[in-house]
């Protein structure tokens, strides 16, 4: 029992501590992706006859370099964090929620309805939770549909969530166009209660930017998601199902119930994202406000490696690209940022397994 370790009993793969391996595997893929994107970006900029350095300088100046730009980044990052968290929550259970777009829209719509229903002058401490609950419930309801169809009939969640996007968005469009819009527009009347203070109310430098207190809400949600995933028995079961459903089933975890829960909560998180636009920015629901933020959440989750804090950072990154596109428009078309986004997503998708394999290979060699 006390014999020294034989070669057989030594850990097979690495001698480094577990946290270091985890850290490297979490961080290296996004950085490799970023590097690849930078190179592609340089080539693109050069092809327009511009200096990459100049363009990047402009990009940083227009985003992080002044209060307004930074406020816009904060605002965009808030919605992206919501949708990124939603996607990553599903992915942790092994499920791909592509329905963020419609869940976000449904959440925003419900928040607007709640804000309209409440009497004018309802204090924010009461109105805000009610609007958030309404938004979450609507998003959760949309998320629960694919969850139920998957556990009951085995319908693939990717197909159902994609298809449901069309159904829900068309339904919302019809309600707005046929019943709820202010004449000559495609948005609802302004909400009576629940409007969130903007950052510019406190710091005048942020004047004109849409940044608002929803970003505090999203940070709380991110922390809660992290706590649930990594500190509770429910999160233990959820991650177990995502990693190895057969082993989870063997351990007595009800895989179907976890799926149901994960997709529903994923929908709730995406739905809550609707408050950023509706309560924080415009104070009404407008048809098509989500404008791709739900889909971009997939990229945010991938780059953020499904870690809630990674998602926050990735959301900032994509928000910067998006806002930066406007800043550099004078030199190169802003669509270049869309191209870069695509490159980052592709690079991450490819680099994750690749980098992992390389990492493990080098460790095995250094053990030998």
């Amino acid at each position, binding site marked *: 029992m006390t014999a020294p370790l034989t070669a*057989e009993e030594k850990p097979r*793969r690495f001698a480094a501590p*577990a946290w270091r391996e985890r850290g490297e595997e979490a961080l290296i893929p996004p950085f490799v992706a970023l590097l690849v994107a930078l190179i592609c970006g340089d080539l693109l900029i050069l092809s327009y006859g511009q200096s990459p350095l100049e363009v990047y300088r402009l990009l940083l100046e227009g985003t992080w370099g002044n209060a307004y730009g930074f406020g816009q980044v904060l605002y965009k990052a808030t919605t992206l964090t919501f949708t990124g968290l939603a996607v990553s929550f599903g992915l942790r259970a092994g499920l791909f929620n592509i329905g963020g777009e419609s869940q976000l829209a449904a959440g925003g719509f419900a928040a607007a309805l709640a804000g309209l229903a409440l009497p004018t002058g309802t204090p924010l401490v009461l109105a805000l939770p009610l609007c958030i609950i309404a938004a979450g419930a609507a998003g959760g309801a949309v998320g629960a549909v694919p969850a139920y169809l998957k556990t009951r009939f085995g319908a693939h969640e990717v197909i159902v969530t994609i298809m449901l996007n069309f159904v829900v968005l068309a339904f919302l469009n019809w309600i707005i166009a046929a019943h709820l819009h202010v004449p000559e527009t495609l948005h609802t009347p302004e909400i009576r209660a629940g409007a969130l203070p903007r950052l510019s109310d406190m710091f005048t430098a942020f004047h004109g930017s849409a940044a608002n207190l929803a970003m505090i809400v999203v940070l709380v949600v991110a922390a809660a998601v992290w706590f649930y995933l990594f*500190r509770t028995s429910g999160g233990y079961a959820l991650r177990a199902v995502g990693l190895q459903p057969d082993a989870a089933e063997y351990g007595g975890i009800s895989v179907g119930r976890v799926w149901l829960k994960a997709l529903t909560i994923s929908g709730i998180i995406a739905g809550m994202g609707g408050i950023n636009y509706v309560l924080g920015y415009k104070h009404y629901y407008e048809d098509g406000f989500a404008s791709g933020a739900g889909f971009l959440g997939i990229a945010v989750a991938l780059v953020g490696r499904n870690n809630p804090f990674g998602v926050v950072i990735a959301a900032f990154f994509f928000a910067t690209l998006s806002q930066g596109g406007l800043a550099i428009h004078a030199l190169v078309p802003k669509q270049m940022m869309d191209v870069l986004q695509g490159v980052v997503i592709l690079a991450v998708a490819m680099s994750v397994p690749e980098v992992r394999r390389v990492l493990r290979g080098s460790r095995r060699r250094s053990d030998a």
Partner: protein
Amino acid sequence: MTSGTGGGPTSPGGESSRAVAIRMEGISKYFGPIEANRGASLEVARGEIHALVGENGAGKSTLMRILGGLMKPDAGRVEVNGRDVTGWSTNDAIAAGIGIVHQHFMLVPTLTVAENLVLGSEPASRGMLDYERAAASVQSLSTETGLAVQPGRKISELSVGEAQRVEILKVLFRGAEILVLDEPTAVLSPPEVRELWAVLRRLRDKGDTIVLITHRLDEVVDLSDTITVMRAGATVARIRTAETSPAEIARAMVGREVALSAGRRVTPSSATGSRGSRGLEVRNLAIRGSRGNRVVDGVSFAVQPGEILGIAGVEGNGQTELIEALAGLREISEGQVLIDAVDITARTVAARHEVGLSHIPEDRHRRGLILEYSIADNLILGVENKFTKGHVIDRAAVLANASGQISSFDIRPGDPALFARALSGGNQQKVVIAREMSRAFSVLLASQPTRGVDVGAIEFIHQRLLDARAAGKAILLVSAELNEVLALSDRIAVMYRGRFAVVMPAAEASEEVLGEYMIGTKKGNAA
């Protein structure tokens, strides 16, 4: 005459005059750390029926995939009809007349027999499929070979036996002269098997070469001309069928020398049983496989507290399904399962744990462990709710539990934060065993408890099982290692084709006796 298990493959004598259709030498194939083939060899004469036998995972299918060009060997040489074809492609293999009939049918269910057969080489007239011509050529091939099919029927309407005939016709249609059939009888009824044998004999007499992969020995002793036995990725024997006995083949298939500590044998005594424990009782259990066939077909037995019932058998005879059904991971179609006199037939996995069931699964990588979880987290799988305050996991309690089990089960290295995937096979298995034997239980299902585990850990695991038995646990042991079953069990059951062929006291059992029941040459007494 044959090399048996010791000396490696030998060539049967008096046969050198015959042309060699397939010669594979020194074939090795690795999948990461797994050696599917290590230095395997195969020699098949033209115009013979050659049986390739071995247990599941012995490397038969890999060897045939290499032959068929689906994989390239990491080492070794492949010759077909005297030509070196090492590392060729599937198209090369088809062009050279090799046809593989896979275990799982590769037919398009919505198309007709004729359409499936001509797929890839459709006779066309003005860009449209010439259905008449397709049907006619299928019909003529069918008559020629005696493989009766109706060209116009859809695959989805056919029985499994008919679908298999279509599969065989399909490779013949492409001009195959060397046919490889992977476990062709797995899904067939006895009359369908007899019919298949007749077809294969006819094809052989016509001059075709046939390689038959199987682990059902009894079926090939009267059909094949030559038998190659594989075990653990290597070829261990090549035998003329006429000159061997089933028992000899069985020994070559399953016999492996394992250093077993024999100092044991506590007399079973229900007096030591935990209070109120009644052990495991199974009544007339039946389980249907994916194709609706009965993979477990009416099995009844009981395991008393303080007893180890060992189940021997060639793999694939229903042992896996039996254990999974008992554990709650597979649907039971008929019968009852009782633990301590509580009927658990319809209960969930978690509810079975509550009643006192523990389970060491046969596949620790798929079931037993979450490889990306730490040792500490793996040690609470299934009992995670007992380590919480509110719903929050009590990290201190999880770590305390881990350090306790790491030291009492000697898990190395003993760092509870290490991922399970970083451990050696033996230590991974110790994690599973530590978890399953540390919780309160009265019945233990131990499925292949020492598979892929080093010798030191084998001894340790055996001692733990015997300790549990001495503590009055009822243990159902399934193992592919006959020695293990013989050394640990109080009673031994042999499972054959979904049934218990025999149940006997371990004292009366020997490898020879069990071997005959395992391959079905001896039918037993079991109810």
